[in-house]
């Protein structure tokens, strides 16, 4: 996919949507993209994850909601508990009101363009694109260059969205290879609460690539939980989640990566107010020729913040993995408490993980720790289970599931927890008793 082809698509979009409130934002981003291009291995943050190869192919970059998908087809990807959930559907990166269902009255969902022009203008102009300060690469710029058909989600001050918000990112690759670029901006108001669950799926046999950016702003006393489940076999994605806590607030994310071709996650948590708290959990369980890369950043801007990060990985087959966890403690961020841990089990000799914690501390009164382990299954424990009559295969599955447990236990939505548990059991090849 040449820059010229991207440019063609870009100009078509600018023309078709010339009245958009986001035209300038797009133009600036496209200029940046033209300069940077798709990041290659020379880019410091992309050393071990080669997405440029994916773009040897030509993708369609849809920007019209020529939605070819029916409600019945969405049924195939609905998550358990959907009857009790708000459901937001993106098709090929374009948000579809028609396929979505919003029933919590305290949840406002608007096209991003509309929000950028009305009462939410201020919020949009302040926060949209904030992730570019942390994702200094062409792939982030590419999403913004095509920002169109994105969504603005708003929870007003003091409101608690009791029903979770499920976001389905569906790519319809039945007729052509598709580049999907979903974009959302989420604003959780003062003392408001919400829980989000997001999944990715591709229909059809052609290739798809999802380049998603989700930016979330969390106000004082707000509480936000975000669960990402990636299980889209054979398809690649870059998924950027950028959380900015601008008041003393609480966030909690769990990133579950179970399948995909190349899966790259950028998770940034900016603790931009006194006494923020954030928990970051991740589980990746990969096999075959898959690649998973979790890049996380916890940026302590203000003092007295607490963050706790635990990522666990089980790598089998030829799967390759990257964990890069950055913790920044900026000069004002005294009394920071930041913990990070990454634990991996390699099940095959050809699987690998490249783990790198990166602490940059510019304040003196802080507590930070990090640790990283790579090991294999505990033989002693395996023997213990087998001595009770449990077959080697089941014993191994039980052990791996047990290993994953202290990540999974942080999925605070029971139906989703059960769903993920089942996916994992299925993957590990045993039935839960």
């Amino acid at each position, binding site marked *: 996919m040449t820059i010229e082809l991207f440019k063609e698509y870009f100009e078509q979009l600018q023309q078709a949507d010339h009245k958009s409130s986001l035209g300038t934002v797009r133009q600036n981003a496209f200029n940046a993209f033209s300069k940077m291009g798709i990041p290659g291995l020379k880019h410091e943050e992309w050393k071990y994850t080669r997405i440029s190869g994916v773009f040897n192919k030509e993708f369609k970059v849809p920007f019209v909601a020529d939605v070819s998908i029916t409600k019945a087809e969405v049924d195939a990807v609905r998550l358990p508990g959907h009857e009790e959930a708000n459901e937001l559907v993106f098709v090929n990166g374009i948000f579809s009101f028609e396929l979505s269902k919003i029933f919590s009255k305290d949840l406002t969902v608007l096209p991003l363009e509309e929000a950028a022009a009305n009462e939410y203008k201020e919020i949009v102009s302040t926060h949209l694109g904030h992730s570019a300060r942390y994702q200094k690469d062409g792939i982030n710029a590419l999403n913004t260059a095509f920002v169109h058909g994105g969504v603005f989600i708003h929870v007003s001050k003091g409101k608690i969205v009791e029903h979770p918000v499920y976001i389905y990112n569906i790519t319809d690759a039945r007729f052509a290879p598709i580049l999907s670029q979903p974009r959302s901006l989420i604003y959780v108001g003062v003392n408001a609460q919400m829980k989000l669950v997001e999944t990715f799926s591709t229909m059809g046999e052609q290739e798809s690539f999802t380049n998603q950016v989700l930016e979330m702003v969390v106000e004082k006393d707000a509480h936000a939980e975000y669960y990402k489940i990636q299980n889209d076999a054979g398809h690649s994605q870059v998924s950027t989640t950028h959380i900015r806590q601008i008041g003393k607030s609480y966030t909690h994310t769990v990133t579950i990566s179970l399948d995909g071709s190349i899966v790259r996650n950028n998770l940034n948590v900016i603790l931009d107010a006194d006494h923020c708290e954030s928990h970051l959990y991740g589980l990746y369980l990969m096999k075959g020729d898959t690649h998973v890369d979790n890049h996380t950043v916890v940026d302590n801007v203000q003092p007295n913040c607490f963050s706790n990060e635990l990522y666990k990985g089980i790598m089998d087959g030829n799967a390759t993995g990257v964990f890069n966890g950055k913790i920044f403690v900026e000069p004002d961020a005294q009394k920071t408490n930041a913990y990070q841990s990454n634990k991996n089990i390699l099940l095959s000799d050809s699987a690998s993980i490249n783990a790198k914690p990166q602490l940059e501390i510019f304040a003196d009164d802080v507590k930070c720790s990090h640790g990283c382990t790579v090991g294999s299954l*505990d*033989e*002693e*424990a395996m*023997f*213990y*289970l*087998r*001595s*009770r*009559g*449990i*077959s*080697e295969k*089941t*014993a191994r599955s*039980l*052990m791996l*599931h*047990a*290993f*994953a*447990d*202290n990540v999974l236990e942080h999925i605070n939505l029971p139906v989703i927890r059960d769903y993920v548990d089942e996916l994992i059991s299925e993957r590990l090849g045993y039935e839960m*008793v």
Partner: protein
Amino acid sequence: MLSIRNLHAGIEEKKILKGINLDIKPGEVHAIMGPNGSGKSTLASVLAGRADYEVLDGSVDFDGKDLLELSPEARAGEGLFLAFQYPVEIPGLSTTNFIKTAVNEVRKYRGQESLDAVAFLRLMKEKMAMMEIDQSLLSRPLNEGFSGGEKKRNEIFQMAMLEPKLAILDETDSGLDIDAIRIVANGVNKLRSKDNAVLLVTHYQRLLDYIVPDFVHVLYNGRIVKSGTKELALELEERGYDFIKSVVDAVEEA
């Protein structure tokens, strides 16, 4: 039931068992005693199928089957059970789930139908009462943060759930106070029948006041150097292992 012939085993070039012979018949209780490092746990582990140990010579027949050819899980299926000296902690695995999986896999091996949730619960309740073990312990992750006594009781509870033909108890009494020993011993005694057998590995005579053995063997330096009845245990207690050592060492030197 169990017939061990000239069993030699070791680990990484180190010979630990140097020719063990032992026969156990249904209904019998055997005790193996011996000083630390004599090879008691090695014997128990080799019988249960721990892969670290290499069998160098000899054979073990278990109810007509060549035990040493079987995987650890098949040995359990055939009715062998080892209560570990050091039970393993597995955070993240619920004790109940673990036991349910074990019970059903063993049932599958034995050609029995697996227990549904209700039947399993009923069996659990029955054995919990028998073993004086509390539900709260079983809903916790397997052995994680259990006290020494709780771990040992959990072992005996698993034994009760799996109903083995031959139970090997590796120092299940060590580190237990007298009340806990009594509970463990009671549990074992309740499971005794004319069809099953117990092999008690112990360092102290104390346990044998509660589970009375038919035979006592002294293991020293990888060999059974003396066998007798329960009086042998008392003699050992009185005279100490040094007495065995001096006798054996003198014999070997000669």
